[in-house]
């Protein structure tokens, strides 16, 4: 049972949303239940804090006469429920949705100017959540390399990572993946321990995903990765490399 939380400062709209969501749960037999409908963000935080379950949150962005706005509420929720579904409902089109998605991993953004569109948006959000939950339960879980990049948490699919490279500067590591290239602070040794056997340290400065090794250039001590990138290996790692592939 997924708990549903609604925070909206307009009482009338709050009632409409509540009624509609209840109806949708009944009609479609969703495994959800509304636990809090409130005009005050504190109530949402209090209840969510004591829940161990992943929640669904419908939040208003502009909360008049409240100490925090939807963004603040979202970040509070994320502290206790990192995997919950946050959907923002707002009167302002084109408000900063990318920012919300970037920092809070907000799932959707519904505009409430038009009542019909708003309800339709809610309906679709509920459908998407159910679909996602099904997928996570059923099929194989994609494994992610999750790490804190300063103020946000990033997830990179492990299977897409080519290699990690130390950069010239202290504690800085460059991640080379199929669709990502980024710098972060970390240590090779910790990464080696964290990622396990799929990755081998072929050089002081390189930690390579064995699944992506294309070919070895023994003469130049180079590894050609499956995406065309190259990295080096040390003499000591040669034997280990040859035994692994």
């Amino acid at each position, binding site marked *: 049972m997924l708990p549903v939380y609604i925070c909206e400062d307009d009482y009338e709209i709050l009632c409409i949303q509540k009624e509609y969501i209840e109806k949708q749960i009944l009609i479609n037999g969703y495994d959800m239940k509304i636990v809090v409908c409130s005009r005050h963000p504190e109530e949402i935080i209090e209840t969510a804090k004591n829940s161990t379950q992943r929640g669904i949150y419908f939040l208003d962005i502009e909360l008049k006469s409240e100490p925090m706005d939807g*963004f603040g509420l979202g970040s509070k929720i994320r502290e206790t429920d990192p995997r919950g579904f946050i959907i923002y409902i707002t009167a*302002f*089109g*084109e*408000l*900063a*949705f*990318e*920012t919300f998605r*970037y*920092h809070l991993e907000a799932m959707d953004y519904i505009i409430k*100017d*038009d009542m019909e569109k708003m309800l339709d948006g809610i309906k679709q959000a509920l459908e998407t959540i159910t679909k996602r939950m099904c997928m996570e339960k059923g099929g194989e879980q994609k494994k992610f390399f999750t790490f804190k*990049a*300063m*103020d*946000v948490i*990033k997830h990179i699919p492990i299977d897409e990572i080519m290699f990690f490279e130390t950069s*010239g*500067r*202290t504690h*800085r590591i460059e991640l*080379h993946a*199929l*669709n*990502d*290239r*980024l*710098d*972060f*602070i970390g240590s090779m040794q910790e990464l080696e321990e964290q990622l396990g056997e799929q990755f081998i340290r072929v050089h002081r400065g390189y930690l390579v995903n064995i699944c992506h090794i294309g070919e070895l250039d023994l003469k130049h001590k180079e590894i050609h990765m499956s*995406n*065309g*990138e190259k990295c080096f290996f040390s003499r000591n790692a040669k034997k280990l490399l040859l035994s692994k592939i």
Partner: protein
Amino acid sequence: MSLLAAWVYNILSTLFMFIFILLIAKLFLGWNIIKPSKKDYIIISCAVLSIIFPALMGAFFYTAGLFKKPLYIFEIITDYLTTLNMTLFMQSIFKKGWLKSWGATIFLCMLSNFSEYIIFIFIPGFQFHIAILHEFLLYILYSFLLTPLIEIILILILSKTEAGRITRHWINNYNNSTKKNILLSLYPATKYIANTINSENLIINKYSASTIITILIVNIILAYMEITEIQKQKLEAQQINIQQQNIYIKNLEEMQLEIHRFRHDYKNMMSGMYLSAKEGDIKAVQNFIQDMTSDFEHQAGSQIHKFTQLGNIHIMELKGLLLNKMELMQSKHIKYELEVLRPLLDTTFHRTDLCRCFGILIDNAIDEVCGKQNAYVNIMISHQEGFTTFRVKNTLYSEIDFHKIWLEGYSTKGEGRGTGLANYKKILERYNNVFPHTSVQDGYFIQELKIQE
């Protein structure tokens, strides 16, 4: 004095000077010691150990009686060697770049020379006779206690006055100006030039006087150059400011026109709505209201929204850049959004570099989507406690070789382009608190730059 004694003395005094300049660089220039890695420790110890060579040379020249010869060639050689040595030391500790370290070292040498000689300026022909014990002790007291004391007082005076501010400014912004480089690099030599003038009957000590006068002249010239440069920069900033305001006004006028147009439509709509309401057609009234709000959003709302976002940026240079790019995108009919949720007051990333980097990212985005269908660019600037994120996201049309985009000359647009990202990377290499992230996600190309404030 034997060669060995002179050598040891030289080593000790240079070491003392090293520690002293370290302190002053930290206190007066506000330089921070970068946590050294293993390799750096080796370099630092090399720098310290290499003191022995200039010290030995100086000691040798001294005992061989080569000092105080015409042209002062040997003093000059020793001085340059010591200065080079110190530069190596400064660079390995503060990692501010060779040129800046060189400039700062010479400045600090000037400072210590100044404090060394200022006392004797009115005592002509004064010399310590090192061979006599009590005079030698006095000399030690003088060079290890009195001189540093004067230097500290000088620093205190400097840091409280405008002269200190200018000095700090030119050292910290020391750039590739050839004039400045020559002037500074000549200093260890120029201070002896005045010495060669033969003047027996002066009432002032000519060694002190010539050094001090040289130092003063060099510093005055430098300060003058710095002031003119600051003024030039101010003027440029003003010019940019005016340009920005022009764009701003132009945009406001356009917005006003749009609102005017909307007002016209709105009057028509109102009269239509009035009729519908009179007939009791609620559905039609609802539709009218709907149309009107979306119409307003379309015509003026989005423009107003963009300007509110822009208003959150308090870095003038960045605002100018964004205005410029926004106008460019508008003229190319690219749909774009700008998100600045919280006010951005300042960042530790150097402003010019920030504009260059962000400019490259936005230009790349524009290049990619220009003339394509559903072209969309999203620019996000987000300032959260301690971190600022700059992010450009655009629809991606061409397959890119993800790892090749960093190479100079690679471009999806044919030859003669593609220096952008290579440059971008080069700029970022200079910063320790900037973290880039490039990715392709769901058909979007995303470039992100995170700054740890």
